[in-house]
């Protein structure tokens, strides 16, 4: 594989992309996000994501509010006191996106198989198969998936630019990001890069709270395909602190349901057969 000639491909293309096997992802380094929203715009442009009238929220520079069917990237803004000196302003900005979970709840609960795992290890909704049942919406631990009311309530989310990846290009948001806060590449490589970056960032006293979010394979969803460097607790950015999804939980749930179903049957049988006489 690695020996294959790659000269004709664009420079960003990596040999193993086409054949599958290399999981691709995002590393979003919030410490160098400048809040320009180029990612939000580039994503909308490339993916034809509809315009939404967000109104004015008054929440700093954020009128997008959250990742959803019509906002596949969302830049969060937090203005607050500098935690180290107690005066002056600290800005926290982070571009949120679908996490492309290793154990993706959305993919598992989808009753039609509209959501699939691509050859790049990403999680993609096939919008022509989606039935609009809304189950993924409540299943996603990050509140990423959402139904697009018009025209027919199907669910939409980040595809990690599946179409661009297939032709060896990088996702629109990563390409547009002027500071390389959004980095795209093979997940393993990104994880290593993120470790090093975290060491650097932590040198600064005001970034004492810096941590990686979603980089570990041992977390509740088996690690994110799109992970982050955050400067504070995830909930500060509107992210769940300890997201969990385990397919194995289903055994527990169906176990409880089976016992409950037996209780129902036995209750009915008891009511029918118990005689006072």
């Amino acid at each position: 594989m690695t020996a294959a000639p790659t000269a004709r491909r664009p420079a960003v293309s990596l040999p193993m992309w086409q054949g599958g096997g290399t999981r691709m992802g995002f590393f979003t380094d919030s410490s160098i996000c400048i809040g320009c929203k180029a990612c939000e715009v580039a994503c909308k442009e490339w993916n034809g994501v509809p315009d939404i009238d967000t109104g004015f929220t008054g929440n700093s520079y954020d009128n997008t509010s959250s990742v959803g069917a019509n906002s596949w990237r969302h830049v969060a803004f937090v203005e607050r006191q500098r935690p180290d000196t107690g005066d002056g302003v600290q800005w926290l900005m982070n571009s949120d996106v679908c996490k492309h979970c290793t154990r993706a709840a959305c993919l598992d609960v989808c009753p039609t198989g509209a959501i699939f795992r691509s050859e790049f290890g990403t999680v993609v909704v096939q919008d022509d198969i989606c039935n609009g049942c809304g189950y993924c919406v409540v299943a996603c631990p990050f509140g990423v998936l959402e139904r697009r009311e018009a025209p027919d309530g199907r669910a939409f989310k980040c595809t990690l630019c599946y179409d661009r990846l297939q032709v060896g290009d990088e996702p629109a948001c990563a390409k547009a990001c002027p500071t390389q806060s959004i980095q795209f590449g093979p997940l393993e490589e990104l994880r290593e890069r993120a470790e090093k970056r975290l060491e650097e960032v932590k040198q600064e006293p005001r970034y004492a709270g810096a941590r990686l979010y979603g980089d570990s394979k041992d977390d509740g969803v088996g690690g994110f395909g799109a992970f982050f460097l955050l400067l504070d607790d995830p909930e500060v950015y509107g992210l769940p602190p300890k997201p969990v999804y385990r397919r194995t939980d289903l055994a527990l749930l169906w176990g409880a349901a089976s016992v409950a179903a037996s209780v129902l049957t036995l209750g009915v049988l008891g009511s029918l057969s118990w005689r006072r006489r």
Partner: protein
Amino acid sequence: MKAERPSGGERQMVPSGKPRSYYGLPIVKRPAWTWEVPWYLFTGGTAGGLAAVSILARWTGEAKLGRRARRLALAGAVISPVLLISDLGRPERFLNMLRVFRPTSPMSLGSWTLAGFGSSLGAAEMADIVGLPNVVVGTLEGTAGILGPILANYTAVLLGDTANPIWRGGRTILPFVFSGSSMAAAGASLCVAGPTDEGVAARRMVVLGTIIEQASFLLMEQRLGPLAEPYHDGAAGRLVKLHRASSLAGATLISTLGGRSRKAAILGGALTLAGSAALRQCVYRAGFQSAADPRYLVDSQRGAATDPGDGNGSVT
């Protein structure tokens, strides 16, 4: 969380302390379903309980009660997919659910259960009408009788297998709540539809079902701890009260006067059915309230370590 304020006369423009949420905005999405869904939980559950009565009554020799239960169950099996189709928006979308079988999706398993349930009940009714042998009718009824109790509480698995804090937190007990409620509602519909002197079993089902439903609901609330708050607040809270009052009144009436007075049996049955419907409504509504406030989700994942009074990091 009172951090030392910087001295000076200027109004502080930047909040102090550590915000525990992002402007109080929700983290997980609220359910994207419409009003039909909780009604479906009720009709499917009641029909499921009735199908169990249908086959078991045949077995214990109460053929008339069994037939009545089967017809009522069939009505539920007809209404249920109509409600689901209305929620999905288009009839073919219900058929799309049956194009694949996905064991990891409780909704996929549930769609198959409902389809199998409805068709075996319909076939049993037809076989009975054209006078096919008892074994045929019995086998079809038996199939529906096995699928029925699954239909009555797979919906609890469906709600439990989500990221919604209140559904997820109560997920091992919710099937028992639904089972109890389905038993009570099945009994209640027989009390309403059938003559009083045939309804001993139906009345017992109301009482036993109500006990199971009420007790497991209380247990679920206790297990949820602070996460149970939506069951006491707002629309869901009001529905819980309605559910309790109605179910308890229904069971009391049925167990005291239900055997003697036809009017009492009908009124008691109606109250029990209303209580069972209200139960599904309150569980459904609570999911919206639980998703709306990020505090529930953060608390459930952080072990209630957050300070509820500090839930908003908004900027002046």
